[in-house]
């Protein structure tokens, strides 16, 4: 998804012109650019629609069901309309410390985001040129990505125990989450950097810019949309991270851990209400990120014309 985000400015399609010239032959094409659609289009469009419905349908079910009144259950039909279960989240002791864990998760996600953006950006710069041992670092990162989160979390927890350190959300869980967000961040940076034109950087050097100046005045502005994408990954992956936090968060829960314990012992729509709240937060973050990427591109487009 990163590559596509980075691709967004390039809506000028070289294909459109060439495809027009071959339009007659395209009637038999698997993917004609013009003319009548082949039957496969309708089959695949149906599959795609079914996929999107299956992707979003269940989520919307729980958002709807979270607005039931006090008689509400876990399944349809809806029983009344109210905000009862949302109020239940903040007032009931039974549902645990939702507000505290929400605060912690947001704070943690912000810290993780900042570190992920800075570290991924630097690593992205480093990986542009080969250096001795780069493959080792690369595969260490892939290993960190594919390793079972629960196992890593246990190892981190045991390590802290052995060192006599207290596990907490802002130390061990922070590190455990970074071992998950950083590989994603660096992979996104790879996609972003591969589209960066080196000529701009070299031009900056030719004009007498220092290394720091060329990074600050050329690279960061040019790569800004990509960096926003890295931030989006950092925030959302941390905010929803569960397996690696389980053994490392210490005595105070993050929000996904709170949700996890609710799935095991709460059987009321307040579970759905929490799902609705946390998804709204995710949607705000996703919307803000995608919106700012579009905004940057737009600003760039207009200033290029002016």
């Amino acid at each position, binding site marked *: 998804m990163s590559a596509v985000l980075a691709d967004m400015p390039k809506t000028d399609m070289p294909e459109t012109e060439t495809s027009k010239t071959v339009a007659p032959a395209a009637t038999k094409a698997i993917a004609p650019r013009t003319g009548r659609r082949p039957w496969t289009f309708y089959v695949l469009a149906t599959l795609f629609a079914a996929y999107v419905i299956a992707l979003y349908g269940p989520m919307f079910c729980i958002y709807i069901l979270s607005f039931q009144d006090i008689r509400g259950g876990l399944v349809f039909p809806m029983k009344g309309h109210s905000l009862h279960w949302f109020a239940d989240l903040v007032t009931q002791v039974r549902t645990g410390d939702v507000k505290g864990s929400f605060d912690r998760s947001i704070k943690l996600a912000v810290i993780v985001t900042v570190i992920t953006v800075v570290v991924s950006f*630097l690593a992205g710069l480093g990986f542009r*040129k080969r250096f001795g041992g780069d493959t080792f670092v690369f595969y260490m990162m892939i290993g960190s990505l594919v390793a*079972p989160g629960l196992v890593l979390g246990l190892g981190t927890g045991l*390590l802290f125990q052995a060192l006599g350190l207290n596990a907490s959300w802002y130390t061990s869980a922070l590190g455990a989450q970074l071992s998950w967000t950083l590989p994603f961040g660096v992979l996104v940076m790879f996609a972003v950097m591969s589209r960066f034109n080196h000529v701009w950087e070299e031009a900056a050097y030719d004009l007498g810019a220092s290394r720091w100046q060329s990074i600050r005045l050329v690279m960061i502005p040019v790569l800004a949309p990509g960096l926003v994408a890295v931030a989006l990954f950092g925030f959302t992956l941390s905010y929803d991270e569960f397996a690696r936090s389980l053994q490392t968060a210490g005595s105070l829960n993050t929000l996904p851990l709170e949700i996890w314990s609710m799935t095991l012992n709460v059987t009321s729509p307040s579970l759905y209400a929490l799902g609705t709240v946390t998804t709204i937060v995710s949607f705000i973050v996703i919307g803000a990120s995608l919106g700012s990427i579009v905004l940057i591109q737009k600003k760039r487009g207009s200033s290029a014309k002016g």
Partner: protein
Amino acid sequence: MQPRSSPAQKSPRANLAGWLYVSPLVLVLVPFFVAPILVVLAASFFATDGFGGLTPGFTLASYVEVLHSALTLKLYLATIKFTALTWIFTLIIGFFVAYFLVFHVRNQLLAIGLFLLCTVPFWTSNIIRMISWIPLLGKEGLINQALLGLGVIRQPLEVLLFSDLAVVIAYVHQLTIFMIVPIFNSMARIDKKLIEAAIDAGASRFDIMRLIVVPMSKSGIALGTIFVVSIVMGDFFVVKVMSGGGSASVVSAFYEDVGVLQYPTAAASAVLLTLVLVAIVSLILRTVDIRQEITR
């Protein structure tokens, strides 16, 4: 990614600069990836008092216990079953969704919009997306209500929720995106002229799929497979919640072991799982240079 340099150019200066740039990354990964793995490896050789206390030492008792247990084989078979089923479904759906977006949607802006529509749920909570199947699959859920209403069944189906079926549905729901993204990326790089040339040469739709699209999407498929396989094999909460406790996988058993403080057995089982995972991933990596692929 590295158009200006080749491996031959590794001067000491370039090495130093490279390591300076990646040093923050390494400084996070060493204590939070390498060290924990080593700790788990060490713990697998330790003895335990059964109450969470670990005695440093070197014993293979935990491995013997894990390998001799009839449960281990059962757990691996269950894990492999879930992995294989999830892989097949995510591959088929992911491949055709990506194919549709790349080759059938003519407006590129629309294609990107639809692609983002597929990716948005990836940035939301997995646990919430998992439990969101309860109102649909439950005994009194929408699917049962609909089937009862249509007269297809007389008794509500109980196999929908808290079953292996529910586990696979939840996996496919969560992980298809990991197939779509890399396959989409490989397919988007296929030159459309190649396909037009094939048509001009008389290739059928099936020929184009078999001889051009599938071979050229291989790296995307390999990358997606690595993600899906490693996530399913490392998962425990989908199995635990969606099977209603009826099924277990290697990692969910690990979770239970940790819960009762059986660290050495848990660690030994984790080391074995990691070895299996490493074997599978390196097998896949033999077919594709993932670094070349990602940085291209």
